[in-house]
C-alpha cells in the first residue's frame, strides 16, 4: 500500500536520475533542473524530518520557485512564438495572486491556495497548448520516448489532479486514514509517484537521445 513518505523517495529518485543522466545535457537546462529538484528534495526532507507540523510557510516560500520554474520550462519546451511575453504574463499573473494571497492571509502560516490554484491552472493551460501544437505538427514523433512529451505530461497530470488537493488542502490534512497518516499524504504519494515517474522517464529519454529539452 502506498503510504507516506513514498513521494519523498520518488523525488529523491528523480533528483538522483537528474544528477546521473543530465551530465551531458545543455548547461542552462541541466543545471536549472538539478537546482530545482534539489530545492524540492531539500524542502520536502526538511518538512518531513525537521518541521513536521505548521510547515505551510515553507511551502509558501517555495511556491514562487516551483511556479517560476514550471512556467519557464513549459514555455521553453512549448516553444511559444511570443515566448517571453507569454512567460512574463504568466509570471505576472502568478505573482499577483501570490501577493494577493499574502495580503489576504495576513500571515504566512496558512497555505496560499489562490496562488497555488492559479499557478496550477497556468501550467495546465500551457500544457494543453503544447498538446495542440502536437496536433498541428506535420512530422511524427514517437511520444512514448519523447522527453518533452513525458516531461509535459508529468506536469499536466500532476497539476490537474493536485487542483483537488489544493482546494481541499485544509480538510484533507485533518482527515486521517490511520492514526498518524492524513489522507493528503496518501493522495500526494500517488500523484507524486505518477509525476516523478514521467520525469524520470523523460530524463532517461533525454540521456538516450543525448539532447536537451530546450533543443527539442
Amino acid at each position, binding site marked *: 500500500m502506498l503510504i507516506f513518505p513514498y513521494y519523498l523517495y520518488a523525488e529523491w529518485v528523480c533528483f538522483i536520475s537528474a544528477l546521473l543522466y543530465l551530465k551531458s545535457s545543455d548547461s542552462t537546462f541541466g543545471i536549472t533542473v538539478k537546482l530545482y529538484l534539489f530545492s524540492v528534495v531539500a524542502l520536502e526532507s526538511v518538512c518531513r524530518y525537521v518541521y513536521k507540523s505548521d510547515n505551510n510557510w515553507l511551502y509558501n516560500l517555495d511556491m514562487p520557485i516551483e511556479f517560476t520554474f514550471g512556467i519557464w520550462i513549459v514555455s521553453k519546451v512549448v516553444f511559444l512564438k511570443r515566448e517571453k511575453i507569454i512567460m512574463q504574463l504568466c509570471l505576472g499573473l502568478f505573482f499577483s495572486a501570490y501577493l494577493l494571497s499574502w495580503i489576504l492571509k495576513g500571515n504566512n502560516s496558512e497555505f496560499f491556495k489562490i496562488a497555488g490554484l492559479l499557478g496550477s491552472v497556468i501550467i495546465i493551460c500551457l500544457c494543453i497548448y503544447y498538446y495542440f501544437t502536437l496536433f498541428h505538427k506535420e512530422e511524427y514523433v514517437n511520444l512514448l520516448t519523447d522527453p518533452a512529451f513525458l516531461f509535459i505530461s508529468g506536469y499536466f497530470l500532476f497539476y490537474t*489532479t493536485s487542483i483537488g488537493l489544493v482546494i481541499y488542502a485544509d480538510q484533507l490534512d485533518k482527515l486521517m486514514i490511520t492514526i498518524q497518516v492524513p489522507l493528503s499524504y496518501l493522495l500526494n504519494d500517488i500523484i507524486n509517484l505518477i509525476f516523478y515517474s514521467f520525469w524520470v522517464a523523460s530524463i532517461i529519454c533525454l540521456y538516450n537521445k543525448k539532447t536537451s529539452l530546450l533543443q527539442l
Partner: protein
Amino acid sequence: MSVQQKDFFTAVIITITIFLIVALGFILLVIVYNHRKKRHIEEKALMQLTFDAEITKTQLEVQEQTMQTIGADLHDNIGQLLSLTSLTLNSIELDNAPKARQKIDAAIDLTVRSIKEMRLLGKLLQGDQLIVMGLSEAIGHEINWIEKSGQYKVSYTNDGEMPAVNSPDKDLILFRILQEILNNIIKHAKAKEISIKLDYEEAVLQLQVSDNGIGFDSENLPTEQCGMGLQNIQKRAGIIGGEATVLSNPDEGTTITVFIPYP
C-alpha cells in the same frame, strides 16, 4: 471516521479520480491521434512510393514504345526508302542520259523523304530535353515542328497561370501524351486544322487537342480499332492521377481532353 468524514473522503477521492481520468484521457487522446498521424504519414509515403514506381514504370514503357516506334520506322520506313534509293542508284545507266536523270531525281526524292523521316524520329527522342524548358515551351516547340510541314494550321492557347512549382515527371508524361495524339492526327485523321489548349485552374492541368479530321465513332469503337494509341493515352493519364476523354464522330473531327492533378 464519522459519516460526514466518510462522505467527504469519498467526494475527494471521486473528484481527484475524475481529474486524473480526464488528464489521462487527454494524454491518451494525444497519443492515439499521434499514432494515427504516424499511420497516415506511412500510408502517404507508401502512396508516394507506389506513385514514383508507377511513374518510373510509365516512363520506361514510354521509352520502350519510343524505341519500338524508332525500330519499326527504321526498318519499315527509312530502311525501305534507303533500299529503294540504293536500287534506284544501282539501276542508273549512264549511257542513257535522260533515263539516268529521271532515276537520279527519284533517288534525290527518296533521300529527301528519308531525311524527313529521320527528323521525325529525331523529334521523338527529343522529348526529355524539351521538357526541361517547361511544358508550355515544349508544346510550342512541337507546334513549330508541325507548322513547318505546311500541312496543318495549328492554334495554341495557354490559359491560366502555371504554378510556380512544376512536376517534371508529369510534364514529360503529358508531353508524351500530346505527341501520341499529334502522331495519331498526322497518321489517321486527315485533318487540316489542329487546336491545342493548355489550361491550369484549381490545381488541375487540362490539355485539350482538337482536329477537324475524319473522326470516328468514339461510342462504338471496336477494341481492336481503338488502337494502342488511345489506350495508351488513357492509361498514362490514369497513372499520373488524371483521366482522358475522347470525343469524336465521323466527319466531325476529334477532341481529346486530358485532366491531371497538378503539380
